[in-house]
């Protein structure tokens, strides 16, 4: 059964081309995926991300539970409103999902997890939470709108009541707070995103999500679809669950070492495998690729390196660079001259550091 967000009719009225995305009927673009991409890099665009799953954890031992559940350390969250990107792992060290944790109060943490993994995430979290007496509650009564781009924050702040404008404009990266709009809607504004641009992700009560979206539209923010969201996040060097990592891949094999905290004495699920992998050497690595020749790198293409074969994970044409870019998982070690097999031809590619593009700028050594 296909699920619809509260904005489904709004997307259709705006001329969106709809596609199935993990069981959700979502807009892929509203005319031109490329135009939407460039708009987010140069001004602002808004995305319906209401399909994402909001889960509230409550109980006195919630922080203790999260120390056990995820690979990053929730002890980095010391002020209410602060957020943390992390992965939850299975006992084999594989990534069950990546998620953002918001610290609301000592007995209340909010998680935002992927839509496509909702069922297994809720089952896993629920199972693990029992021992800590933590309540796990999905919050399907929220919509979510990501407003991204250099002018995005200004556009959102303009919709807020006077008293909330200054505090929201002072939110640091990866911080969030509640605010009230001019129309009296209470929203949860987080300075996070999935595009490599500044901006907010705003959680809105479902009943008011259409009004909030239309207010942004009236303020001149154009809608952008999942197509642009995918090219923006890949340029920004951000992983997509299911494509760049899954439950057979550890964070070290998915360029997510920065999200793992091996802090003293914290026994999180999967830790033993990660430590063993670190000691023995991680067998595979995720690298960034740029192709200078014409063509497009795609998921599943074979990658040839000095140490053996790998494959393209996320691959696309980068609208900002005008060349194909990709993530690839390849054997560990210096990859040497790397080639990609495209329809039987071996095309040379360059191994580069990512992000490829950040805040409107192509990074050094990419183009």
């Amino acid at each position, binding site marked *: 059964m296909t699920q619809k967000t509260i904005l489904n009719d709004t997307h259709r009225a705006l001329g969106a081309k709809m596609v199935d995305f993990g069981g959700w009927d979502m807009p892929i673009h509203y005319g031109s995926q490329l135009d939407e991409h460039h708009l987010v890099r140069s001004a602002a665009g808004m995305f319906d991300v209401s399909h994402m799953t909001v889960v509230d954890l409550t109980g006195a031992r919630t922080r203790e539970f999260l120390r056990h559940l995820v690979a990053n350390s929730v002890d980095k969250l010391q002020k209410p409103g602060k957020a943390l990107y992390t992965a939850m792992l299975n006992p084999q060290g594989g990534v069950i999902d990546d998620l953002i944790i918001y610290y609301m109060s000592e007995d209340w943490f909010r998680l935002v997890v992927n839509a496509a993994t909702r069922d297994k995430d809720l089952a896993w979290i629920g199972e693990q939470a029992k021992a800590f007496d933590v309540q796990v509650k999905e919050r399907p009564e929220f919509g979510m709108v990501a407003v991204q781009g250099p002018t995005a924050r200004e556009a959102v702040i303009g919709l807020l009541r006077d008293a909330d404008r200054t505090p929201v404009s002072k939110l640091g990266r990866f911080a969030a707070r509640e605010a009230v709009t001019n129309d009296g809607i209470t929203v949860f504004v987080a300075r996070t995103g999935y595009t490599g641009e500044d901006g907010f992700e705003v959680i809105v009560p479902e009943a008011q999500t259409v009004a909030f979206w239309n207010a942004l539209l009236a303020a001149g923010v154009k809608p952008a679809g999942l197509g642009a969201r995918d090219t923006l996040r890949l340029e920004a060097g951000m992983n997509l669950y299911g494509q760049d990592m899954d439950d057979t891949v550890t964070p070290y094999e998915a360029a997510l070492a920065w999200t793992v905290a091996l802090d003293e004495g914290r026994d999180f699920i999967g830790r033993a495998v990660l430590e063993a992998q670190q000691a023995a050497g991680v067998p595979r690595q995720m690298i960034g690729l740029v192709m200078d020749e014409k063509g*497009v790198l795609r998921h599943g293409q074979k990658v040839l390196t000095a140490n053996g074969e790998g494959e393209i994970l996320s691959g696309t*044409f980068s609208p900002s660079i005008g060349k194909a870019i990709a993530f690839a998982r390849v054997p560990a070690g210096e990859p040497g001259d790397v080639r990609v097999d495209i*329809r039987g031809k071996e095309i040379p590619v360059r191994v580069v550091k990512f992000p490829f593009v950040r805040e409107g700028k192509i990074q050094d050594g990419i183009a």
Partner: protein
Amino acid sequence: MSEIPGDLKFLKSHEWARVEGDGKVTVGISDHAQGLLGDLVYVELPNVGDTVQAGNACAVVESVKAASDVYSPVSGTVVEVNSALVDKPETINEDAYGDGWLFTVEIDDAEQLNELLSPDDYAELLEDEDH
């Protein structure tokens, strides 16, 4: 949906063929096909002199989101390719039935053209797909 020109013939897989009258047939993809693909960013054309077989893949068009094979509606020899598309693949999005043509084939057997769909049949096919 844009008007389907009356002088074209179609494959179910959304390629069009225009008979140029001197044993030559120009081939492209339909406006419907470019709409499905979205913004095109890469085109791989056959070489002049290549032999193509009706129903076989002989070119590739790629949008940001997908790569799609282009099947030749007719058999013959490629006599011209639209090399302007290499630098401006978006021309196919803008003018699929005109400047967005892909290649021209000198056909082996004019009879083959009778097996292709008429504009009306193709329009009907698209309508059925919508349901």
